């Protein structure tokens, strides 16, 4: 069983509206590790996130994706979540009329077989909100409705912390965040990884800008260009990209080709 653990993506090809976007992705996200997925805008990072979580607009044309041995691609989106996958959206949906507190409770109950007594649940939520510098008045607001960009991302992080998935994909969680918000997000993820509930969580942190990686140190960095992972390395790779952008990598690629 342990040999099967990991989010394993092999030869994944994905198209959107008839256009092939992902041209064969191989990627392993290990439990308890932080993987960064970097790449310029339009390279296909969100497409990978949506294909893995089962967005109906993304069609998988080939390859495989398994989560701790479970064939993700055979499952409906909610079943993928139940198997332990979480996506923090680049653009979270606003759902008027649905209170944050109700949604948190409903999703937690949908995902976990051990329903928490309300008081315990509230305590858990308050703790996590504290780490994210979120006021408890958020709980009474409608989900993402009228939220600023930063508030939406904080709420995504709150859900991540409350749901404690096996694998978490964070799609551009850093974009639109100010320095304080970014630090709060980093601390929240750090606290989650220090906690028993999150120490085995594997992270895939999608970003085109390495800022967030100063707060959540990556174990591995992958670079995506035009629907392919073109190189992988350690945290130094992120620093290289910060200095030089993607051009050097792109040039090396075309020289290889």
């Amino acid at each position, binding site marked *: 069983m342990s040999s099967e653990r990991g989010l394993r993506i092999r030869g994944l090809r994905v198209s959107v509206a008839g256009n092939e976007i992902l041209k064969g992705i191989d990627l392993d996200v290990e439990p308890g590790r932080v993987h960064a997925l970097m790449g310029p805008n339009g390279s296909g990072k969100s497409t990978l996130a949506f294909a893995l979580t089962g*967005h109906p607009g993304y069609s998988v044309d080939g390859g495989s994706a398994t989560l701790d041995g479970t064939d993700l691609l055979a499952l409906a989106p909610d079943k993928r979540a139940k198997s332990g996958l979480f996506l923090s959206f680049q653009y979270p949906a606003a759902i*008027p009329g649905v209170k944050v507190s109700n949604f948190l409770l409903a999703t937690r109950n949908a995902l976990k077989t051990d329903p928490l007594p309300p008081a315990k649940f509230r305590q858990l939520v308050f703790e996590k909100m504290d780490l994210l510098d979120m006021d408890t008045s958020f709980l009474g607001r409608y989900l993402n409705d009228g939220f600023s960009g930063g508030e939406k991302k904080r709420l995504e992080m709150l859900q991540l912390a409350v749901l404690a998935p096996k694998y978490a994909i964070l799609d551009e969680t850093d974009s639109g965040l100010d320095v304080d918000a970014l630090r709060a997000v980093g601390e929240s993820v750090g606290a989650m990884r220090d906690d028993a509930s999150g120490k085995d969580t594997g992270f895939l942190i999608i970003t085109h800008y390495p800022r967030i990686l100063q707060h959540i140190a990556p174990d591995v960095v992958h670079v995506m260009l035009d629907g392919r992972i073109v190189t992988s390395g350690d945290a130094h790779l992120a620093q290289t990209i910060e200095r030089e952008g993607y051009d050097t990598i792109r040039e090396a690629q075309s020289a290889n080709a």
Partner: protein
Amino acid sequence: MPSVAVEETRGGPSGRALAQVSARPEAAFLSAEDRQRAFERFEESSAQRERPGRYWKIDLDALDLSNYDPEIANPGNLAEVDMPPHDRVVVTDLLTASRRHPDVFRQALGSALGDAPSKFAALARAFASGGAFVYVPPGVALDAPIELNYRPRTGASFPYTLVVAGDGAQCTVVVRTVSDATGVLSCGVTEVVAGERARVDVACVQSLAPDAVAIGTCIATGSAGAFVHFCSAQFGARLAIEALEIDVDAREMDANISLLFFPRDEQHVDVLSTVEHRVGDSRSDTLVKSAASGAGQARYLGNIRIHPSAHLSDARLKDDALLLSRAAHIDSVPALEIAANDVKAYHGATVGAIDEALLFYMESRGLDPQAAERMIALGFFEPAVERFPASVRAELRDALEAKVKK
């Protein structure tokens, strides 16, 4: 012989039936001539709603009501009252009100309806019996709601509720029309007369059996600074026709309308709301949340009229419709007529299915598609639900949930 009396009212709310009703002592609060005039108005006037078309199947000017026999003892005519006792607030039936509070009663009854009531309001007036009279004297503020429950049985009933709030009075009135009986026609009026700076919230909740015909008119008039809020939730009946009108005919009035309706299966719901800004320095806010599933049909016409002299009126109309199946249809028309120029008027209307992006977001968090759809649909109604009096919100949410579940 009682059987003769019953016999004579056969054939629905006819002229003959009216003569029968008018002759009863219980009907003495309105003269036979008054009733006759109202009945003629019903027969001669048009509902002034669109003809049947591709989706909507029922002609409101040609309703066959002949199967619904009026019966003066129908409990659908007389409200069951539920409220904490209060030594100054009056809640009684119309006949008693006409005897014990003749001045207030005479002055108020029909004052919002006017001389030319709409077709169905005229019918309700013609056959009114029993009913409910609520009088909150000047300066009295009631915290707890006054709950009036009409429980019609088979046949026609004509619940008439008259709410009079004196200057500075405050009250919340809940009017329920609720019954499991088959073969029900309920055709009622809720008339509100609000004094200066009075504050009146009235919520009408209709949940009749699936074969019923439910017709309601809510109409209000107010004095300077009065706040009036009509809430209406239409859940039951095969045909529900609801008209709400607030006449802003005094300065600094605040007129509010909140509507919820949700036809499913073959249900038809026709809703008309009208705010007449006749006098300026006034405000109105109309919020409509509707959904339809199955082959449910709804149409909504939201009139806001700002008359030429109604300077500094501030009117708002927001109308959102959610379609939950392919055969469901909601025809929604906001109609703003603005004849004054220094006014604020806003309207926004949306019609659509549940947004796929919302569904995916929720599913990706582990909710199955049905649960996600339910949550989104219930959330959709929530801004309107929260405008209803607190004492009815839970039942509204339950009713909506039952509708969504199907």
